[in-house]
């Protein structure tokens, strides 16, 4: 299957190779949570809710000099075409939970909140490729909404390599083509890479190009997230009437 039409240069969904899907972020979608956000990348939709910082529930896990960050990832049963029960705690979701936790932990100023706990819940409402990245972006927005102190914004984006071309932000059909898929997370201000995942082999020079493309994607998302947060702040100010 040709994922990039050699004649028009378009991908099957009409994007160019270096174009991202449409992204949309919204803050405050779960009223009960301390912070929450929904993030969409094309047809991939995820929701994130943050509780905390709060008292550590299981005292055994309490850390004396920093906050405990916990993350739970799940997929809604209706998130993919085949409606089957998605068991919680399977290998894949445990792994993604861990990836999200580690990525978020790297930007939360945990030492400011010792002996407390922060819970991040992310759920995939609709899956169409790039769920990992969408979860991280949603979590970033939700953490910001919850007012959790962070050293920087983490954003994530993936890039793949199909038809001998690096492609930004793979959708499901591109992702399932089985080519290499690189998921990158960066700290937006400092350009530091905090997440890098790939489960395939790529020659070094090609890998660098693919990763660079993913980093560009992360930066674009960071700009958008800043905008969303800016809008939100303006709205809060307006509501306060100041």
């Amino acid at each position, binding site marked *: 299957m040709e994922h990039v*039409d*050699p*004649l*028009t240069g*378009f991908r*099957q*969904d*009409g*994007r160019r190779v270096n*174009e991202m*899907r*449409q992204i949309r972020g919204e803050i405050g979608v779960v009223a009960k949570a301390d912070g929450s956000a929904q993030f969409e990348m*094309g*047809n991939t939709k995820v929701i994130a809710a943050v509780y905390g910082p709060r008292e550590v529930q299981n005292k055994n896990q309490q850390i004396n000099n920093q906050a405990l960050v916990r993350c739970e990832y799940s997929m809604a049963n209706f998130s993919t*075409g*085949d409606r089957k029960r998605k068991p919680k705690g399977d290998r894949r979701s445990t792994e993604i939970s861990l990836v999200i936790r580690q990525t978020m932990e790297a930007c939360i100023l945990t030492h400011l909140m010792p002996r407390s706990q922060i819970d991040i819940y992310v759920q995939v409402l609709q899956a*169409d490729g790039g769920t990992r990245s969408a979860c991280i972006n949603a979590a970033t927005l939700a953490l910001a909404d919850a007012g959790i102190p962070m050293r920087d914004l983490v954003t994530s984006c993936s890039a793949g390599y199909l038809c001998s071309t690096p492609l930004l932000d793979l*959708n499901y*059909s591109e992702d399932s083509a089985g080519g290499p898929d690189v998921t990158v997370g960066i700290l937006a201000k400092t350009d530091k890479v905090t997440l890098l995942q790939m489960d395939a082999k790529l020659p070094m020079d090609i890998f660098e190009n693919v990763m660079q493309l993913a980093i560009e994607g992360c930066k674009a998302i960071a700009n958008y997230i800043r905008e969303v947060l800016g809008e939100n702040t303006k709205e809060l100010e307006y509501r306060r009437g100041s």
Partner: protein
Amino acid sequence: MLQNKSFVKKTRGGKIQKQVRELYLRHDIPCGSHACGSSCDRAAARLPADAGTVLVLDTNVVLNQIDLLENPAIDNVVVLSVVLDEVRNKNLAVFNRLKALCTNTGRNFYVFANENFKETNVIQMVGESPNDRNDRAIRVATRWYQGHLAGNSKILLVTNDRENKRKAIEEGLSAETVESYVRSLGRPELLDLVVLPTSEDATMMDVEDLRPSKRKIIYSEHKPMSEITSGLLHRIYHQGKLRVNRYNPFEAYVGSESIGDEIVIHGRSNMNRAFDGDIVAVELLPQDQWHEGESSIIADDEDDEEDDVHLAPSSADDAPRSINQVQHAAASTLTVSSRPVGRVVGIIKRNWHSYCGSLEPMPMPAGHGGTAHALFVSKDRRIPKIRIQTRQLDNLLDKRIIVVVDSWDCSSRYPSGHYVRTIGKIGDKDTETEVVLIENDINSRPFSAQVLACLPPLPWTLSPEDLAKPHRLDLRDVRVFSVDPPGCTDIDDALHCTRLRNGNFEVGVHIADVTNFVHPGTPLDEEASQRGTSVYLVERRIDMLPKPLTEDICSLRSDVERLAFSVIWEMTPEAEIISTRYTKSVIKSCAALSYVEAQARMDDSRLMDPLTSDLRNMNSLAKIMRLRRIDRGALTLASAEVKFQIDTETHDPLDIGMYQIREANQMIEEFMLAANVSVAEKILKHFPLCSLLRRHPSPTKEMLEPLLRTATSVGLDLDVSSSKRLADSLDHAVGDDPYFNKLIRILATRCMTQAVYFCSGDLSSSEFFHYGLAAPLYTHFTSPIRRYADVIVHRLLAAALEISKLPPIFQDKAQLTNISDNLNYRHRNAQMASRASVELHTLIYFKKRPTDAEARILKIKSNGFIVFVPKFGIEGPVYLMPRGEKGGDWVVDEAHQRIIKAGTNTSFGVLQTVMIHLEVVEPQPNRPKLELSLK
């Protein structure tokens, strides 16, 4: 901007799933015209500002008229992505040609992504068929162009779909059919390229003779696809690729996996419009009809052309497969053929492509300039005649042309097609050579810039780095030499032979280290892999690798330092191998001898120089090795290879004669065989699953049948139960004259199939055997300059020695199999091309020189016999009575293979020597052919 496409899809597991895909509609798609008045990006623009008319093509135009589109007269074309998608789904071959047009910078074909463009995207309406939706999309895009380029270029929709054209005109667009558009160009010759819609086809029937029988349905209808699929499932039908007998186009074979045997198809009506190479569905005939092939052959016989004089076949693959008709007719009452016989009920996949040939001579129709119907005769006899329509008949009658097939209706005796292009005048050497190349699918184009970019900088010299490599052995002080045919510029191999202190010999075979320069995966490597082999024509060589590699850098010329891959043995004076070493090396050949020179040196007893004694030592070793090989049962086969002497100015053949084989040839051959065997053992040991080897299947009893029959009729008893027995009985086959033994060997050789390459993982080790050489293992290592198989083997050997890593391709078994299949195909084609080139030059030679020569009768026919002319390596029919008449005064004696003139004692028997006259005749203008007659 964003639209979701949703559709249902069946998953692999069989579940029905709703799939939702996004589709982004864009605003930034340029129109691709330099005449654009808007702000389109012109970086990729292809349509010139002065294009008067811009064509928008409908899908049916692309699918049916691709030959026309490839003509430069059609230009300034917009190809819509909706059209591209439809073409891709319907015909991949046409799609690839269209793609080539769109990427060809010499042509102005612009791809417009109408489906991705906000203003031209259309959504399927309720009740609208996908076809109608696509037609509407084409019209919407045409309208957009009309508005966008208004006043600068005229937009014309070209469609052969009546409905689409009507709607377009209603909507205010300009639309025309292909034919009327081409007519408006005022170039009548282009009209030949236009494929007429099938509805008009009926009128073309006139071209066929008007015998009433020809008007009715000639072939049975093909079964619908659904019926074929279920028939295949229930084993009522059998699927396979149809192969037409090269020497009897009325007989074909379908290799069927479901039966595990070849199904024979007799006659055109049973072939039911299938072409050579088509994937067909076959139904078996009732078993009692299995022997009834003859009647259909005879029924079709009126159509058959008499056997032309051709080069004597060198193996069973070249030889006619049908059993001699005379004998068969007599035998058929006794034996029912055990091979299943069937008929084609449907065609699963067509193998139609373009064919090379000429028009059947015909009188010019009255009234010039009009359309004439003509029959095209392909050079490839397996292809039936093709009806075409032309407006340039007088121009085409004496030309070699290319024609493609468009359709074959069951009421039409011949398929219909159309003219594509002219190659040149019939009989012209360059034209005919090009025909040979096209027919055999040989790429003779110059190497591309990307390929040439892979060559090392020239002039190449040995660098200190090459020498410093730890795996490279410096053999520059060893007395290495090469022996090749005279004038050989691509020297693959060189040898050395040194007497050791212990009385043994060190013998080295040094092969050009091609893989030092051709790296896996590079454009150079891909090109070589595709070409597969160099092709040797009489006056031309088409190289597998670019000239600097072939003739200079890799060629092991004398007095220059060259990189080599060496196999070095220690041998006792009895030619027993004590040890074998393999190494990359540097050599400096001290002499590039020709076979004649080498032979002369060995024969001249006054010469006592070191080189000559090396040659003599090698020769004595080679003789022992050869004897041992023959003892094991290797066949000493013979072929009738001819050699031309070519005029350097005109390139016409000056003389022709058998290629003489000397002891020196055999000596070199012996060591090459030994090197190939040693390398085969080594690579198979290290890579049992992915080695490229060469095997020669044992001939079946059936294949040896013609040899046995001929032998019996002259009172010779051959034992064919094993290659050893056959070799022995061939040795004992001595007749009254010295040539008799060689003749029998030539007949034996042509019963064998050719050796083939294979991947060791594909077969079990019992099938690796090389029958002709009586070797359990064999491969090709010694000619990497001109054979790609050897390049692969060099890589395997280098990996086995841990000099380099095995390229990843060797882990992909499917791809390896593809490679070996391609190599077999290319080798076969290269041989066919060489033979065709020799035949062509034979014809040119005899054109000016009618000659008498001695010939041997090979086969008795009802109206004459087939002779073999040893001196020229050709064979062909000699008729004792006018064609068409059978019997007459002549009577065939089946048992003794004789033809006797009734009432006289004049007779001819098989293997008898006759004097014949060779002359080129032209029974029809521009159709010269070689004719043999009794002197």
